[in-house]
C-alpha cells in the first residue's frame, strides 16, 4: 500500500522534470543573469552584481526605439483589431446564409505560417525597380503618391506592420466574439424588440454589456500578444530589425541573445524582465478597469 501512495508522483515525473529544467530553473536563472555584470558565456563567470545591465539597456538607443515601436503597435493594433473583429462578428451573427463559409474564410489567417504570408504582404507593399507594387498602384489610382512601405519612411513601415498584425490577430478575436454573441440568449433580443428598442440602444445597453467579459478578455490577451510582437516584424522587414528601425522589445531580447550584437545574455535578461514588468503592469491596470466595468 505504501508504495502506491506515491505512485502519482511517478506519473508526474516526466512533466516535472521538463518543466523544472526548461521553465522553473530558467525563471530563477534569468533574474540572476539580469543582475550579473558582464557575464561571459564561455567562461561562465561575471564581474560582479548590480543594476548595470538595466542601466545599459534603458540607455541603449536601440532599446528605446524598440520600446517606442512596441508601444505604437500595441496602441494601434489592439483597439483597431478588437473593434474590427466586433464589427465583423456582429455582421456575422445577424446573417444566416453563407455564415459558415464566411467564418471559415475569416479564420484562415490563423492557420497560416506568419513568416510565409508576411512575404506575400511584403511583395504587395514593396516598391521595386520593376513595379511600384500592388498597394501603391491602388494609392495612385485614387490620386495619392506612392510610398515605399518596406524600405521607406518609418510611418509607412509602421502602417504596413499594423495592417499585417491586425490581419494576423483578427481570426482569433472574431472566433471568440462570434461565440460570445451566440451565447447571448435570443429572448433578450425578443424582449427588446417587443419593447420597440432601437438597434443602437440594443447594442449599447444589451449586447455590449453582455459580451463585455469576452471583450475585456480579448483586450487583455491582445495587449499581452502585441507586446510580444516579433515574428510578424521579421516576416516583413527581415531579421535585421534594428537597422530597419522596426525592432520590438522581444526582438531586442533575441538580438541581444544571439544574432547581430552577439551573445549578451545579461542584457537580454534585463530587457526581458523590463518587458515582463511592463506587461504585468498593463495587465493589472486592464484587470482593474475590467473589474469596474464588467458587472456580472
Amino acid at each position, binding site marked *: 500500500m505504501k508504495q502506491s501512495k506515491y505512485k502519482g508522483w511517478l506519473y508526474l515525473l516526466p512533466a516535472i522534470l521538463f518543466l523544472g529544467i526548461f*521553465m522553473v530553473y530558467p525563471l530563477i*536563472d534569468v533574474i540572476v543573469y539580469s543582475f550579473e555584470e558582464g557575464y561571459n558565456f564561455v567562461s561562465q563567470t561575471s564581474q560582479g552584481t548590480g543594476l548595470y545591465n538595466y542601466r545599459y539597456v534603458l540607455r541603449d538607443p536601440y532599446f528605446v526605439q524598440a520600446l517606442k515601436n512596441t508601444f505604437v503597435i500595441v496602441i494601434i493594433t489592439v483597439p483597431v483589431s478588437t473593434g474590427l473583429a466586433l464589427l465583423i462578428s456582429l455582421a456575422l451573427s445577424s446573417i444566416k446564409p453563407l455564415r459558415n463559409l464566411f467564418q471559415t474564410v475569416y479564420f484562415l489567417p490563423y492557420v497560416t505560417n506568419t513568416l510565409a*504570408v508576411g512575404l506575400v504582404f511584403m511583395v*504587395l507593399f514593396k516598391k521595386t525597380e520593376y513595379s511600384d507594387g500592388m498597394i501603391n498602384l491602388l494609392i495612385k489610382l485614387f490620386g495619392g503618391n506612392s510610398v515605399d512601405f518596406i524600405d521607406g519612411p518609418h510611418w509607412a513601415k509602421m502602417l504596413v506592420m499594423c495592417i499585417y498584425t491586425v490581419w494576423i490577430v483578427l481570426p*482569433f478575436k472574431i472566433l471568440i466574439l462570434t461565440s460570445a454573441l451566440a451565447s447571448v440568449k435570443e429572448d433578450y433580443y425578443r424582449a427588446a424588440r417587443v419593447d420597440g428598442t432601437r438597434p443602437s440602444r440594443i447594442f449599447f445597453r444589451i449586447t455590449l454589456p453582455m459580451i463585455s467579459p469576452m471583450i475585456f478578455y480579448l483586450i487583455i490577451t491582445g495587449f499581452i*500578444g502585441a507586446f510580444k510582437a516579433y515574428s510578424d516584424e521579421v516576416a516583413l522587414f527581415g531579421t535585421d530589425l534594428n537597422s530597419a528601425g522596426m525592432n520590438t522589445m522581444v526582438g531586442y531580447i533575441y538580438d541581444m*541573445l544571439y544574432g547581430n550584437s552577439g551573445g549578451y545574455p545579461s542584457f537580454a535578461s534585463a530587457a526581458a524582465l523590463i518587458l515582463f514588468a511592463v506587461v504585468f503592469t498593463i495587465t493589472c491596470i486592464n484587470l482593474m478597469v475590467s473589474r469596474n466595468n464588467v458587472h456580472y
Partner: protein
Amino acid sequence: MNEDNKYYRIEQAARRRSNIRKAFLYIFLIICALAVLFPFYWMLLTSFKTQSTYNNEYVPKFYVTDPTIANYKEAFTAVPLAGYFLNTLIYTVVTTALMMIVIVPAAFAFARMRFPGRNLVFSLFLSMMMIPSELVIITNYVTITSWNMRNTFAGLILPSITSVFYIYLLKENFEQIPEELYKAAKVDGTSDFKYLLRVMVPVAKPTIVTITILKVIECWNAYVWPRLITDDRSRYLVSNGIQEIRQSGFGRDNIPAMMATVVVVSVPLIILFLVFRNKIMEGVSRGGTKG
C-alpha cells in the same frame, strides 16, 4: 381607413429597412472576406507567373496568361525546401508524440490519483501558465548551448515538450469521465496504467485530437526558438527556411519562385484546417492564442 394606411406605411418601411440592412451587411462581409483572401490569391497567382512576365508587368495583372509550374520545380531544387519540410515534419511529429507521452500521465495523475502534495503541485503548475516564454528562453538558449545541442533535433525539441496549458485542458476533460468507472476498474483489479490506456484515453479522444492539432499548428509555425538554436541551414525548419529564402534565395528578385515556396509551405496547414475545421475552431476558442 386612415389608421390602416398608417400601419401599411410602417410595414413597408420596416421591410425596406431590413432589406437595405441585409445588403449592407453582406457587402461589408464580402469586402472583409476579400481582404482576408487577397494575399492568398496573390501568392497563388504570382506563383504561376514566370519571372519575366512578373517583372514586365508594371501594373500587375489579376490573371495569368501563361501559367507555369516552373516556379514549383525551382522551389524544390534551387533551395533545400524539401529538407526544410523534412526537418519540420520530424520536429512536429516527434515533439507532438513526446508531448503526449509526458502530458497524458500528468493529467491523469492530477485528475484521478490521490497522493500527498497533489493540490500544491497543481497550483504550482497553474501559476506556471503565466510565465512568458520570453523570460525562460534566455536560459534555455544557454542551457542547450552548453549541452552542445545547437543544430540538433534534441535541442530543438526538448524545451517544447511540456505544455502546462494542455495538461490543464486534458485534466479537465479526464475529470468529466465518471469516477465510478475508475472505482469499478480498481475493484476489478485493473492497474492504473492499463485503465489510463484502455478507458481514459479512448474516452478523451476528442480532446486529445484537438490538442494534437493545435500542437501541430504551433510546431509548423515555430520560428523564434528554431532561429536561436539553428544556424546550420541543413537543420532549418520551414519558417527559418522562408526567412533564409527571403534574404538570399533565388537571387533575391525571383518573386514568383518565392511565392511558390510560400504556397507549398501554407498548403499543408490549410488542408489540415479545412478537414478539421470544427475541431480546430473549438480548440482555439477554448484557450489557444497564436504563438
